[in-house]
């Protein structure tokens, strides 16, 4: 798995993609109106097998070290989707910039379904 890497005087610091996914997941769930992070085929299978997985959030780091995040979401019924999506994007961006100093290119939200809160 590709990691985000930076160098200091003492050595290099590598941030694993899972860390970025974890921060994104927590920051997304902080927003009122987000029911949970959605699933994809792989994470669904892992969950069936009893393993907790963050693989539903996809992280892509390009050659310029720009990070692209894809977050599948399940939204609570009765909330305005564009408003929630916008707030999630802002919260994820600020959390990642605060915690990792990464340059975030895109935060793409994929609303998978709507559930009762």
């Amino acid at each position: 798995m590709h990691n985000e890497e930076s160098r200091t005087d003492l050595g290099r610091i590598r941030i694993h993609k899972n860390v970025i996914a974890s921060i994104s997941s927590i920051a997304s769930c902080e927003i009122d109106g987000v029911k949970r992070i959605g699933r994809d085929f792989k994470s669904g299978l892992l969950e069936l097998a009893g393993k907790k997985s963050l693989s539903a959030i996809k992280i892509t780091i390009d050659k310029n070290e720009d990070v692209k995040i894809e977050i599948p979401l399940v939204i609570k019924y009765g909330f305005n989707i564009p408003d929630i999506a916008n707030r999630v994007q802002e919260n994820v961006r600020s959390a990642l910039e605060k915690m990792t100093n990464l340059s975030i290119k895109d935060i793409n939200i994929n609303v998978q379904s709507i559930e009762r809160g």
Partner: protein
Amino acid sequence: MRTFTVLGILFYTVVLVLIGLTLIIFSLNILPSQDINNLLLYMEYSPHSRIIIGLSGLLLILITFSFAQLILGKFQRERTIAFTTSSGQVTIALSAVEDLIRRLAGIIPEIKELRPDVIASKKGIIVDLRVVLKADANIPELTSRLQEITRAKIQEVLGIEEQIMIKIHVAKIISLEEKERKRRELEKEQPTIPFGGYGRV
């Protein structure tokens, strides 16, 4: 990704052609049944060939799952409404919009069942509603109200300005008598326990 799809299609074509050829050979009796029997016996008693066959089976299952995921994922991706914000793209699965509309059935008491089908086209969003109504419903008034509520809800929740076309198909009207008859039938189907009421306080 496209290369993988092409490879997958080629793989399945080859596998299906091989199965077809095997069936033709078998039906024309080209291969003697003794040879097939010998081959099967060899595969049964040789541990190496059994391992190879088992691993091939596992590989086939894995390839099938990943190919199915690729195809289904592609279909799912296509069934979305998308818009862009300053931070990136937001896509909303049409199944999520269908979930949202399905919840409206709870708001209108005259609706017994509501099955939505949402299609996103260049003209706008087309919503096909298949409804089962209760007998006491005024259909023109109710359908008009349902169209208004659905349109308002989609615009409120999705925040889109696109044209929303709502088609309603009343599939069935359930009368109260029918409901009562179904309930009685259910009661008949459940056998009564002799002296079941005794002993209860």
